[in-house]
């Protein structure tokens, strides 16, 4: 579970001889935090701005008359006439439906990929069968293949299966495994003590019972890490759903947002609507960070220490 070696923070280093450097470091850090968060504030500010004040308040940091109309219209809560009056193009994208698709897309992949990869990782770590190491080596090699190499043939496969525009077509390449997930969980399973499993085995438990009742419960930390990394990656995945989903009914949020933007006619885009859509699309990752902050940070830090 301690994926990040943080134990040594308890020691204190000798006092710094340069308080000036310390002050500068604080200033720099504050500046970076401001730069990191400023664009997100601008998104929210714009989303809360009425389309008329957009022109007069472009340089200001605060909407003088905050309104929820933009959120309402991207969520399809107002009539077409009202939406057009508020600056919408009329060809709005249904973000609520896209949100639903994104949740299904991400949720299915997180569950499937984590579970099936755990099964495979357990077999590679603990069970003996002919060809095991050769197959695992193939998995490792596959980790290096860039997405674009796979996406073109995979697109053809999905097209031939008649799965374009469907949830199965969108989740298929991800739901059963990724080489990284198998690799990561196998490393962890190898580090688990064997004694408990052996005791269960002597008690007559089969491999699946041991896997389900002992190995998985002992691996909640790594499983959560993997689930979080997968959730962030899939929530943000653009290329594959963009290839597969050509109907509005199957858009995920990143695709819906791109389409909403490209529907904007020549001239001034519907910025207030776009920013409301952007904010809505980001809410789930904000919630993930708020509720699982430490876990998310540690998972991300882990992803760089593999």
């Amino acid at each position, binding site marked *: 579970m301690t994926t*990040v*070696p943080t134990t*040594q*923070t308890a*020691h204190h280093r*000798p006092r*710094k001889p340069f308080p000036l*450097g*310390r002050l500068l*470091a*604080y200033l*720099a*850090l504050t500046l*970076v935090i401001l730069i*990191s*968060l400023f*664009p997100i504030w*601008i998104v929210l500010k714009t989303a809360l701005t009425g389309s008329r004040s*957009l*022109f007069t308040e*472009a*340089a200001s940091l605060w909407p003088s008359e905050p309104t929820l109309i933009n959120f309402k219209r991207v969520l399809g809560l107002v009539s077409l006439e009202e939406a057009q009056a508020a600056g919408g193009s009329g060809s709005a994208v249904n973000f609520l439906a896209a949100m639903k698709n994104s949740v299904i897309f991400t949720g299915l992949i997180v569950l499937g990929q984590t579970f099936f990869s755990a*099964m*495979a990782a357990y*077999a590679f770590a603990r*069970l003996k*069968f002919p060809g095991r190491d050769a*197959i695992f080596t*193939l998995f490792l090699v*596959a980790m*290096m*293949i860039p997405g*674009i*190499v796979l996406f*073109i*043939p995979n697109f053809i496969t999905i097209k031939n299966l008649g799965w374009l525009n469907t949830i199965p077509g969108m989740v*298929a390449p991800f739901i*059963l*495994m990724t*080489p990284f997930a198998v690799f990561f969980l196998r490393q962890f399973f190898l580090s688990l003590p064997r004694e408990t499993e052996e005791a269960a085995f002597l008690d*007559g*438990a*089969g491999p*699946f019972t041991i*896997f389900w*009742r002992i190995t998985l419960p002992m691996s909640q930390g790594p499983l959560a890490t993997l689930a979080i990394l997968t959730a962030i990656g899939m*929530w*943000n995945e653009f*290329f594959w759903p963009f290839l597969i989903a050509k109907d509005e009914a199957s858009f995920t949020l990143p*695709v819906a*947002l*791109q389409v909403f933007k490209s529907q904007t006619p020549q001239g*001034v885009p519907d*910025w207030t609507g776009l*920013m409301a859509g952007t904010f809505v*699309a*980001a809410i789930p990752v904000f919630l993930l960070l708020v509720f699982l902050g430490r876990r998310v*940070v540690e998972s991300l830090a882990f992803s*760089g*220490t593999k």
Partner: protein
Amino acid sequence: MTVPVQRETLVVPARAPARRRSLSWMVGYLFILPAIIGFVVFYLYPALRGLQISFTDWNLLSEPKNVGIANYQEVVRDPRFWSALGITVKYVLWNIPLQTILSLLLAVAMDRLVKSMFVKGLLIVPYLLSNVLVAMIFLWMLDPLLGIVNQWLDLTPIGKQPFFNSAEQAIPTIALVNVWKHMGFNALLFYAGLQAIPRTVYEAAAIDGSSEANTFWRITLPLLRPVTVFVLVTSVIGSFQIFDTVAVATAGGPADATKVLVYYIYQNAFGFFRMGYATAMSMVLFAILILFTLVQMRLLRAGESDLD
């Protein structure tokens, strides 16, 4: 950690262990079956199929026609391929040094000043946003007319800038946008690396009267080398595959100034339906990335000994 195992449920009538063992390899296959299906259908097969398609002329509608290495010959001769590769390299050269140096400095600042998980959480917010959202946000902020950056720049001697709309500025702008996105995350990786350096090394240096700068150059940086190499190489490999930001922010424009390699491949495959040529180019990209991975492995080996 306690394991919620009810003993009773595990006690099943004893079976002959010998028989169990002789069958156990089948159990192994059963466990890897779903993953193997996913692997064979969506990794192994497409990788080999891609190689095969790259030797054909195929528009998805008619039958693929074998053309031997003609696609690869075209890749070499295609000025737009070289231009796309050049633009990609230009992007990498803008993106990587800035991103790495800033993240490293930020990590050192975090290491000195911050224990707070809250601050680390704030710093990774940009990384959690999808590339599409990020592109959208900066399209708006850098909008020539109403974007807040240009509204503010207008008040300074610099004046309004075209950013995405200028052939010269578009690639640096996309690079800076992605620096913004990845800076906090990479800093977090460096920070994790810094935490792994034993504090006793710093104490010894302080006792020896080593200055801050000296300690940084002589101790921190060398001991951080494995992390640095890892972050650098994975970022470079990621940068070479840039697509989302370009697809959303500029669609390759203005005047092809941001037509990076993956965008050009995408155009050939799904715009002109030249599947053979597109896969041939993606194979070339793969070869370039393998080259980087090999370099990474060498550098990593070179960096291993420092902490031991």
